[in-house]
């Protein structure tokens, strides 16, 4: 199963947020999407998960057409999106937030097993199951958001700026965890990040977006070495 995006065009009212973006992510790989603020990274993820409507182009996850249908249906095809900013429901408890991700699943026993797995992955969440989500620290909230996404048993994980607002140590942990998910579960991940260096270090491939189109793409190692990329996004 691969994620294949071709000639995607997305409009935000009168503004063309994404103009002709194409890229592919092979199964089990982590692809980083980096670029400056406003480059269209979030819009890209939101279009892939069904929150935004595309004007033209195609996007497929395996056989499944991502541009048709409501977000709820994409979840049932294995796509899980952790949106930018507050991706946990503050008013619910940690446990309820996790349960949320599995509500649609028919097999309750399997869902319970997944919850166990998520708690093993994020033991801190296990300690705080009955606390309200808004009492968690930033890093814990991000873990909860990813945990919630994992509860849907996805095979494509879309992560929007998980490092935003977090302390460097925590960012390191989160990135390691994400890489771990790819390696141990064979998850396909699209990781949108402003923290270009951190993202590239754990990615297999990467796409650089600029003003809504692909500036360059390739393997993560190549991009780290690319002088233009280094100057623009890596700071050296």
């Amino acid at each position, binding site marked *: 199963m691969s994620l294949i995006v071709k000639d995607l065009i997305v409009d935000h009212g009168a503004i063309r947020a994404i103009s002709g973006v194409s890229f592919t992510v092979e199964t089990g790989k982590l692809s980083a999407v980096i670029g400056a603020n406003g480059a269209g990274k979030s819009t890209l993820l939101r279009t892939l*998960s*069904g*929150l935004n409507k595309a004007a033209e182009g195609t996007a497929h996850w395996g056989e499944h057409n991502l541009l048709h249908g*409501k*977000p*709820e249906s994409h*979840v*049932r095809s294995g796509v*899980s*999106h*952790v*949106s930018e900013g*507050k*991706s*946990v*429901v*503050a*008013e*619910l408890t940690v446990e*309820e937030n996790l*349960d*949320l*991700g599995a*509500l*649609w699943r028919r097999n309750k026993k399997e869902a319970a097993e997944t919850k166990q797995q998520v708690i093993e992955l994020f033991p801190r969440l296990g300690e705080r199951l009955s606390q309200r989500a808004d009492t968690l620290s930033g890093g814990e909230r991000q873990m909860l958001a990813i945990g*919630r*996404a994992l*509860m*849907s048993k996805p095979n494509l994980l879309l992560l929007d700026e998980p490092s935003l607002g977090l302390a460097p140590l925590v960012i390191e942990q989160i990135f390691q965890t994400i890489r771990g998910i790819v390696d141990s579960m064979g998850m396909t991940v699209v990781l949108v990040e402003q923290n270009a260096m951190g993202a590239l270090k754990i990615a297999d491939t990467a796409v650089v977006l600029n003003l809504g189109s692909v500036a360059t793409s390739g393997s993560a190692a190549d991009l780290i070495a690319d002088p233009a990329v280094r100057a623009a996004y890596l700071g050296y």
Partner: protein
Amino acid sequence: MIQFFNMLLIGIGAGSIYALMAIAMVLVWRSTRVINFAQAGMALLSTYIGFELVQKTGNFWIALPLAMVLGALFSALVEILLIRTLIKHSTSGPVAGIVPIIATLGLLGLIRACIGMIWGNQDIQIQPPLSKVGFKIGEETIALSPMNLLVLLAVLGMVVILGFIFQKTSLGLSLRASAYSPEIAQLAGIRVGAIRTIGWAIAGAAGAAAGLLQTVNGTGAVSPDSLEFSLLLTFGFIAAVIGGLESLPGAVLGAVVLGLVLAVVQIYISGTLVFIVAFALLLLVLLVRPQGFIGVKAGRRA
């Protein structure tokens, strides 16, 4: 002493009816973030349907649950036709916040007009199923009749059942999540549209119960222009606000408080001042403690 006790009973009795209405409004608010001014109108329609059912079946106990089911269906229909259209055509710009309010008000007028056209504007009578004569304690008759007791039990039952649904079931979790963060709920795979419809359906059932019970608990007469329904509309809203729109127990508490305050005014001061006092209470709560007695969040920017 007995008068004070009676006043308490009257207050709680009235409050329990407002509580049902308040519950309906809070349900809609929590599942859709809309204050449905047409709630009382829908309750009115359900009451008329209940009236027809009582006529046909001769049995209030069959009519009540049936009316609640039909009320639920009608409410779901409204959500599908009106609210989804509202969301689809939602504009930005200055009027955006006002549109749902005006739309539900329009619906209120529409329902009242239709009721008038079908059944006429005269009062119709519904026979109460239980005695309205107060229980006797020794020599005294207190202001609690079997009918009152039924209403109290019905409200209590609904609060318990609804509370259970909301807090302990998957449906309840979906309802809460869809209200707090519809986007996250969608991304978690919840069919937010269908959930919202269910929320409205439950509210419709609660409203139907409120309308029917209020009618038989009162004079038994109801008409499209009746005072009782203006009361139901206003006091249900006020009760919901006092309790803080976010919680069901809060709505009930708010309704009881309102009922008691109004009973005091009615008995010790004057019956006609009831509306103004309710209005003053509403203002007081909104200005002093906007999140209501139970509410936790501050910030009332709807």
